[in-house]
C-alpha cells in the first residue's frame, strides 16, 4: 500500500464548558470594569500576586488582602507570535509578554500592542526587555482579562 493510501477516520471532540471563576477571579474582573488592577497580598510572605489568588501557592495560606497595583510596569519577557493554530483567540501577529506591574511580585501575561505589528524587526525596536509599558483599557468591558485591551510602550 502506498503511503498516501493509508486510511484515516475523521474525528472531533467538541465539549462546551462552564468554568466557575470563584470569588477572587470574579472580584478581579469586577475591578477591571472600574479600570482598577488589583492584586492580593499574602500576610505570611508579603508577596503581592497579580493575577490574584485565593491562596498563596507557596505558603498555602488564604489571601484576603486586596491591594491596588500600578497600571504601568516592566516587560520581563515577551514573544512575537506569528503562528496560527486551531482555536487561537488573538489574531496573528501579536506580542505576548510577562509584565511586572508596579507594586506586584509576579509577572502578568498580556499583550503589548498599539503600533504596527507586521514586521518583527520593527517590533523589536519598540518592545524592549526591561522597558516600561502601560495598560490601555477596552471601551466596552466584558468582565474578562481582555477588559485591558493591551499594554503599550511608555515613551
Amino acid at each position: 500500500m502506498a503511503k498516501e493510501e493509508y486510511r484515516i477516520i475523521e474525528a472531533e471532540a467538541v465539549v462546551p464548558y462552564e468554568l466557575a471563576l470563584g470569588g477572587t477571579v470574579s472580584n478581579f474582573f469586577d475591578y477591571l470594569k472600574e479600570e482598577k488592577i488589583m492584586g492580593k497580598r499574602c500576610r505570611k510572605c508579603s508577596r503581592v500576586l497579580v493575577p490574584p489568588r485565593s491562596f498563596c501557592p507557596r505558603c498555602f495560606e488564604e489571601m484576603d488582602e486586596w491591594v491596588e497595583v500600578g497600571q504601568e510596569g516592566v516587560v520581563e519577557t515577551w514573544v512575537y507570535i506569528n503562528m496560527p493554530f486551531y482555536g487561537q483567540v488573538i489574531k496573528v501577529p501579536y506580542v505576548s509578554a510577562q509584565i511586572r506591574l508596579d507594586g506586584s511580585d509576579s509577572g502578568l501575561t498580556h499583550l503589548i500592542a498599539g503600533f504596527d505589528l507586521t514586521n518583527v524587526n520593527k517590533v523589536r525596536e519598540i518592545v524592549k526587555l526591561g522597558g516600561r509599558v502601560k495598560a490601555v483599557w477596552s471601551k466596552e468591558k466584558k468582565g474578562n482579562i481582555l477588559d485591558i485591551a493591551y499594554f503599550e510602550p511608555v515613551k
Partner: protein
Amino acid sequence: MGRAVAVIGTGQTKHGRRPDVSYPDMVREVIMVALEDAGITLKDVDGVVHGTMPSMMEGVSSTHLYFAEAIGAVGKPIMKVETCGSTGQSIAHCGFFWVASGMADIVLVVGSEKMNEGDSQATMTTVFDPYFQRVFAAGAPGTFTMQCMEWMYRFKIPEDKGREAAAMVSVSNHDNAMDNPYAHIRMKVTMDDVKNSRIVTYPVRLLDVCPSSDGACAVIFASEEKAKKICKKPAWIKGVGFRGEESFFGESDKSIWPSATEAAQEAYRQAGIKDPLKELDVAEIYNPFTYQEMIFCECFGFCPRGEAPDYVLKGTFKKGGELPCCPSGGTLCTNPIGATGLIRLAETVLQVTGKAGARQVEGAKIALSHAMGGVDQFNGVTIVSSNL
C-alpha cells in the same frame, strides 16, 4: 531509596510519521520489542504504568484504558500518570517506586504519543489556565521563547552569542541523530542552515525546534533479585528527582528554573554526585528547543549560570566533549511527547550498558536523563549507572 531497582530491558518504535499503524498497534509494537530485549514474557510482568500527553492530544479519553490490551495490562494492575512533557520521567519514577517499595518485582512502563493525528499546539494551549493566560498563549513556542529571552536578558548574554551557541546545539543534535536509527529527523544541518531557517517565534527558528513525532517507548524495571537472574547487564537506578512549580508562568524565575535545578539536586543527592560535569559520562536532556538545552545545562550544574553558551561554543557538550549531551539527537530530533522523557531514560540505559551502537559514548558508566512538562512547570531527572 527503598529496594535496589534495575532496568532490564528497553524498546523504542521507529519514530516519525506513523500513519501506517493505528495507535494501539503502535503501542503493542514497542511492548514486543521491550519484552524481547529483556528476555521475558507478559506473564512475568506484575504491573503496567502508562503515560501520554493530555487526552486531547490523543482524541480518546483515558488512553491507558483504550490501550489496556496493547500495553499487556489485561488481568494486571494498571496505573496512568500524566504530567505533560515530563510524563516520560514521571512514569519511569512510578515504575521505580513500585519495584523499590517491594510491592512488585517486574513493572512494565510505557509512554506513547501520536503527535500527527491531532493539533499539538492547540492541545498545548489548553494546558494554560482558562482565566488569565490561555487567550495569549501560543503552545510550546510561545512559552519557550519567552523563557529564553528572559534568560539571555538576565545573564546579559549578547543576542549574537546566544544565537551562535543555539545554532551549534542544533548542529550537534542533528549530527548525533544521524547515528540513531530510531530518530525522526535524520539530516545534516550547518550553522548557516540553522541561522537562516524560518523564524517560528523570534529569535527561535525552525531548526531550533523539535518535530511533531509519532512513537512509543517501553522500559522494564526489576528488583535486584530478578534483575540478577534475568539480565546479564542491567542498568541501576541511582537517583530520581521530580519538582513542580506554579502554573502561572510569571510567578517563578524561569531564567534559573527552580524545578529543574531542584529535581537535579535531589537526584544527585541520592546518587552521591557532587560535581556533575566531572562525574557524569553522558546526559540525555529534554531539549525541544535549542535554547532550553543551554538553560538546563546551567540548572543541572554542568556550568555556571549564564555561561552555557561559552561551554557549548567550546564543545563541552558535543560528542567527544567532556560531557556529551543528547548523543541520540535528543528531543530536538524526535518528540513523541508522552514517550519522550522515557526515551531519554532508555537512551541512558543503552549508554551505561554499552548497547548504544553508533551513538555510544565510549566507556559510559553513569548518566543523567531528564524531561520537562507543563507551562515550564515540571521537571524530572533520573540517574542510572552500570554499577549497583
